[in-house]
């Protein structure tokens, strides 16, 4: 059973879907475990928030081999990795090779990733949309460290947007391995370490785990309906017997996120952050237009 930390204090009245997703992810972080966090962005924001509120003894490492830093926040506008602020007061500075080998030896409990596309077996595409062989595609940057994170950590957690084009029956390109064709032992037959694989997928609308290596819906956000969730997927997931309701952010979470972790809004304002949501006094939800500005700098690119 998935453990979710309980958020304390007042619920926030206004938030956007990205903020909601990050706060949820923070509540899913298990204390005292190791996390290999891909790049920066939402995964990094989530672990930082978790360490402040729910999992002070969670340990994270970055692709460039920084072990358990106490970073100076906010990060530099572009650089969430490699920079001196990101690596500040780590326990050890290693390299991509050294951290990769640590993960290869089983030292990393969880990996947290972003992705372009995911399929029912948790395979991840960050390479291209279209057809590789014919050359008819839109290309992206490649797996980066995601392939290793998805291969070597014990459990892979995916953060993605809840869109039909992201949840596809078959990813256009397996950049990083999920359960591959979904058959038992498929990962092991491909040379990957035994007992690893996809664990959760979290979108702003829904939380999934896997049953027999197939995506299963286990929770939805209170501001969407089950119909909406399923309508924005190109395949039908398995369904848990009981669906969790995913709690919306608290004021405390959002304050930390907006003032300490991402004050420039490079994760939570710039780019595709979903809708703004209003939480009414009675606990119901509605759309909110153009909520009070948070001072994000529109000239800054999205964090990576």
């Amino acid at each position: 059973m998935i453990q979710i930390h309980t958020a304390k204090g007042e619920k926030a009245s206004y938030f956007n879907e990205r903020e909601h997703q990050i706060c949820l992810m923070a509540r899913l972080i298990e204390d005292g475990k190791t996390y290999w966090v891909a790049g920066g962005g939402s995964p990094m924001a989530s672990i930082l928030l978790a360490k402040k509120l729910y999992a002070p003894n969670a340990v994270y490492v970055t692709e460039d081999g920084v072990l358990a830093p106490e970073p100076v926040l906010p990060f530099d506008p572009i650089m969430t990795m490699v920079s001196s602020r990101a690596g500040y007061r780590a326990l050890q500075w290693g390299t991509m090779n050294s951290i990769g080998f640590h993960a290869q030896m089983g030292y990393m409990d969880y990996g947290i990733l972003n992705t372009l596309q995911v399929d029912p077996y948790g395979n991840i595409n960050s390479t291209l949309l279209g057809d590789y062989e014919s050359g008819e595609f839109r290309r992206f940057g490649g797996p980066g460290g995601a392939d290793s994170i998805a291969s070597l950590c014990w459990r892979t957690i995916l953060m993605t947007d809840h869109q039909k084009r992201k949840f596809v029956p078959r990813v256009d390109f397996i950049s990083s391995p999920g359960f591959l064709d979904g058959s038992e032992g498929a990962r092991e037959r491909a040379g990957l370490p035994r007992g690893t694989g996809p664990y959760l997928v979290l979108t702003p609308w829904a939380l999934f785990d896997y049953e027999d290596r197939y995506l299963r819906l286990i929770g939805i956000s209170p501001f969407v309906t089950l119909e909406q969730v399923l309508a924005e997927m190109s395949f039908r997931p398995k369904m848990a017997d009981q669906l969790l309701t995913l709690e919306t952010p608290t004021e405390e979470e959002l304050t930390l996120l907006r003032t300490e972790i991402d004050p420039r809004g490079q994760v939570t304002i710039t780019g595709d952050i979903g809708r703004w949501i209003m939480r009414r006094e009675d606990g119901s939800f509605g759309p909110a237009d153009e909520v009070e500005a948070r001072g994000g700098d529109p000239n800054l690119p999205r964090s990576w």
Partner: protein
Amino acid sequence: MARELEVLAEGQGEYHRVDPDGFREWVRDHKQRAMVPKLMSAKEAVERFVQDGDYIVYECNYIQRGPAALIREIIRQGKKDLWVGAKFTWVDVALLVEAGCASKLDVGFFLFGPVVDRAVKEGRVKIYEYSNVVMTNRIKAGAMGLPFIPVRSFGGTDGFKYSGAKLIKDPYTGQPITIVPALNPDVALIHVHQADIYGNARVFGTGISDVESALASRKVIISTEEIVDTEEIRNNPGITAIPYYCVDAVVHLPFGAYPGEMAGRYASDVEHVVEVVGATMRGFVRQYLDKWVYSAQDHFEMLDKLVGWRKLQEMVQRATIKEGYLP
């Protein structure tokens, strides 16, 4: 004997030639085992040690401690047909492609955009698929003098199909395991905090695979913020990252990582970085190159004319974190 050892699957990607014995002979015939001074200008280093068609590696360029000035010099000199080990790279691939320098990429990760997209679709650039760690593992194998190394990742991906990886039956466990070809690049470009004139170099902070790249590459160009005396190197042998005998050129390039950060010394030029990321994502790389690379004869002229002392000084002042970055 001659028991069978099955190859279960093989990628179909072209890969840089695996030839550990040839690499050894290169070392024997070209690397100086005596301590000889190697100080030279960026122009001379790139002219002498980067040839058209070379496989080049570097990392974190325009981010932190990248060999930014050396990459700009390669662009100025119009090198052709470079094969780039594009692991933990960023905007620089687009710069090299727009400048006509690169024609093959082993990916890794880099910041895509219209320029590379067009070049790939027009066949001017070929891509082979790996991941950052698989690439650094390949370089690690090269730096161990091996022809290949097993990896526990990458299996089952579509990238595998377009790579030089193979899936074999492990003769020890009987289980399937992926092996990847060692990578011995032709050229490594590495920016460091301190080096002596022979190439003994110190690096502070994390990195991706700098030390491995230095050992694994046929030609190694070090650019350094500071030249230190060899006596200083000998005072603390435990922090020498790169030994002189794998280095071919030492270039003294203060602010050589500009516009990226140099941890402990200067912060990045945020405006510049935002400009180049924008240019990469929107396809205005030519304009960027005209403004920042071709307009200056060398790194020093660029700093003087286009950046200026006031900006550099401000970058230095913003580098307030020193812990761990001083010898």
